[in-house]
Structure formats: C-alpha cells, structure tokens
C-alpha cells in the first residue's frame, strides 16, 4: 500500500519530465532505423533486424538506469528523502516504490522498439512474445544499477556516471560488434559483465533457441539479485544515517 503510493509519486515524477523520457524512447528507435539502413549496404549480417532489435532494446534500458538513478539522487539532495525517511515506511517500500514505476516505462520502450523493428521487416511470431518476457527480466538489471548509483551518488554525479555506464554497457554488449572480433582481455571483460549475456538471452529468445536463453539469462538474474542486495543494504545504511 505505502509502496504503491510511493510508486505512483515516482511514476508522476518521471513522466512529467518528458524530455529525458522522449529521448529514452526516441533514440533507440532512431538508432535501429539508421543501422538497419546501414545493413542494406553490408556484406555480413550483424545488423540484421532480428539481431539488431534485441541489442537496441537492451541498450534503451540504460535509460532506465538514468531515470531511477536521477530520481533517487534528486530526492536525496533535495532532502525529500529525509522527509520520507522520517515516515514509517520500510526499506522494502522504498525499493519497490522506485522499481515499480520503471517497469511500465521498460514495457513502453520494448513496444516502441518492436513496432519499429516490425516495420523494418522483423516477422512476428511467438518468439517475439517470449523475448518480451526475457526483456522485462533484463530491465530489472538496469533498474537495479540505477538504484545503486542513485544510492551512492548525488543527482549531478549520476549524470556523469551514466555517461560512463552507457558506454561501458553498450560497447561490451555485443550489439555493435561481437566481442570475439576483438578477443583477448576485452572479450574476457565482456564475458564477466552481464551486458553481453543480456543481449545474448534476448537474441536467443527471438531466434526461438529457447534452451540457449537459460544460461545467459541465469547470469543476468544472478547479477540482478546481487545488485539489488547491495543497493538495498546501502539504502538501509543511508536510512539509518550511517553514511
């Protein structure tokens, strides 16, 4: 109940700042269109729409990191958080309240990108729906990163951290090129981080290779749980004013 009241407030706070929101929807759509035009003049099929769409959607989720991180960071610096910390809400209420409003935004991003992809020649079948499910799970990873950043940093710092995060998470995701093409340390780092696994899970779901979804998705879920645990612990410390 309290969590849902807080979630509604956070939802309003995000959607009433439409510039970033439009950016988070529009940029992925634009990128998808550009790269699929590029594909028409390429010999190999990296930017084939069935390959491109899952990667771009996962990329669009990095905006969820920005939204949640900024909101939490702003609440912190405006001492709004302090005011509600004085209320009888629990840490769980806060975390849920920050996560829930981002899920419909993730869904909206998925829908916008999928419509664009269908328009660009993606064929619709049951695998598309499975991918939507997988993507929703993946979106939690990015929301979790946002909570973590927002808990640690101020809203101004979150902007800078986001710039690093968005680069790191996309270059290491295998959306624009396969990490194997570079190999070595780069590839090992990519394998250690969750981003390439997120894209792989989404691609596998779309291609109908359902068994291939399991391993990368488990890695993503593992990471998500880990990040949420860290974020919650830090948040609880913050609530008790310990840091």
């Amino acid at each position, binding site marked *: *109940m*309290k969590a849902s*009241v*807080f979630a509604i*407030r956070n939802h*309003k*706070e995000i959607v*009433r*700042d439409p510039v970033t929101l439009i950016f988070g929807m529009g940029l992925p759509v634009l990128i998808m269109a550009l790269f699929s035009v590029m594909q028409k003049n390429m010999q190999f099929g990296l930017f084939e729409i069935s390959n491109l769409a899952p990667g771009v959607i996962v990329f669009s989720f990095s905006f969820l990191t920005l939204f949640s991180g900024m909101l939490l960071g*702003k609440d912190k610096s*405006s*001492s*709004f958080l*302090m*005011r*509600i*910390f*004085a*209320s*009888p*809400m*629990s840490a769980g209420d806060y975390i849920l309240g920050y996560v829930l409003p981002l899920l419909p935004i993730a869904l909206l991003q998925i829908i916008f990108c999928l419509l664009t992809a269908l328009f660009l020649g993606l064929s619709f079948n049951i695998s598309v729906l499975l991918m939507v499910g997988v993507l929703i799970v993946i979106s939690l990873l990015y929301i979790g990163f946002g909570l973590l950043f927002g808990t640690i940093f101020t809203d101004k710092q979150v902007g800078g951290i986001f710039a690093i995060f968005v680069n790191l998470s996309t270059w290491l995701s295998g959306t624009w090129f396969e990490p194997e093409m570079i190999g070595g340390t780069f590839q090992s780092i990519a394998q250690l981080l969750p981003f390439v696994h997120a894209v792989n899970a989404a691609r596998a779901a779309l291609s109908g290779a359902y068994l291939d979804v399991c391993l990368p998705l488990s890695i993503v879920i593992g990471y998500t749980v880990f990040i949420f645990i860290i974020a919650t612990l830090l948040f609880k410390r913050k609530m*008790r*004013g*310990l840091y």
Partner: protein
Amino acid sequence: MTIEIKGLTKHYKEIVVVDQLSLCIEKGEFFALLGQNAAGKTTTIKMLCGLLPPTDGDAILDGESIVYHQVAAKKKINISPQETAVAPNLTVLENLLFMGQIYGCSKIEAKKRANAQMNLFGLTPRQSSKAKTLSGGYMRRLSVAMAMMSNPKILFLDEPTLGMDVRARRDLWKILSQLKGEVTIVLTTHYLEEVEMLADRVGIMHRGKMRALGTIQQLMHETKKHSLEEVFLELTEEDSL
C-alpha cells in the same frame, strides 16, 4: 510527558556535536530550541526523528523509544526539514495527498486533511501548481503543511519561517498558535520575535550542550537581562564557557 530526552549524544568521529542532552517536554507544549549556527539543533532533531542513530542516550516520544521502537515512534511524529523538501513535479495537492497516504490515510481522509491544510496555509489557489513552480516562501508553506498531514502528536519544525515574507511568517505564527496545546511542537529558529510570540519554553544550545532551559521570563531573571536577545547573546558568548 510527550518527549523525554535522556543523555542524547552524537559524535562524528572525535567531534561531539550533541553532548548528553537531557530534557522533558510536556504534551502540547511549544518548545523553542535555540542556538547559533552549528550548535547541534538540526542534529538533535534528526536523532529524534529516527534519521540519525544517537551515539549514546535515548529519547521517549509519546511512550516509544527512538532506539528500540523506531517505527512506532515514527508514526507519532512528523518533521518539516531545514531545507524545503517537496516533490518538485507533483502539484501542491498531490504533495499533500502523498504525505497523508504514506502515513496510512485513506484517499478520502487524505483529501479532507489536504483541503483543511490548504485553507490554513493559503495554498488553495495554488493547489494545481507543480511544487517546483512555487516561490520559495510558498514552498516553505507547503513543506510545513506536508508535515501536518499525518496529524502528528509531535511536530518538529526546523527553521520553518526561513525565506517567508513578513505576512506569511505572521500567518504561520497564527497557524502554529492555533495548534498550541494540541500538538507538541519543537521549533528551531534564528528569529527571536518568533520565539517571544509562540514559545512556552526555550532551550538554548551551545556547542552541543544545553546551556539554559526555561520560560523566557525565567531566563531573563536568571541572567539579569531585559530581553531574550540579550539572554541569547550572553549564553552563547564563546568565553562564557
């Protein structure tokens, strides 16, 4: 007795910010906590609101310990923080409803309370304005009104009139004096006229310690001064320690 503070202490590393504070505040009393910048007023209030764990000591708020029964204690209190704290993209009305609801009010009840608060604080004409578009003084009014939404037994007001114009300040005084007797109010301020107008009792903090405690009359008598300002200056003089 609504507030019973027992040896409340806060250290940051070696620095003692609040030092063995002990005092009692009666139900319905209007208590002014004074002290110059960095005296430890906000830190004291933060500890009482469960925002900061005390290094030592405890406080009992309406029967609930802030150390051992924090959630129960939090239900009884509300705070208007020193920095204005409103949700910027929510309207005035939405901000108030939000506060009511996170303290467990139904929507209908919250609406009733919100209307009452908006009337009281002269916010009704701005009820659909986003909080971030309000002027500083109006934002303050909203911030204080939000603290009232939970019908707290104890209300902490940390410099509530900062940045308010003369009339708004007087309006707030009027509102606060209406609450006198019902709600226990702990106020910090640097405006001594405010204290003379409202406070039943005054505590003067200096470097984390309570230097004096009593009615304005008592303090003037004890220090043989003729105004609260003189008393304040005397008790916060650096070499008077």
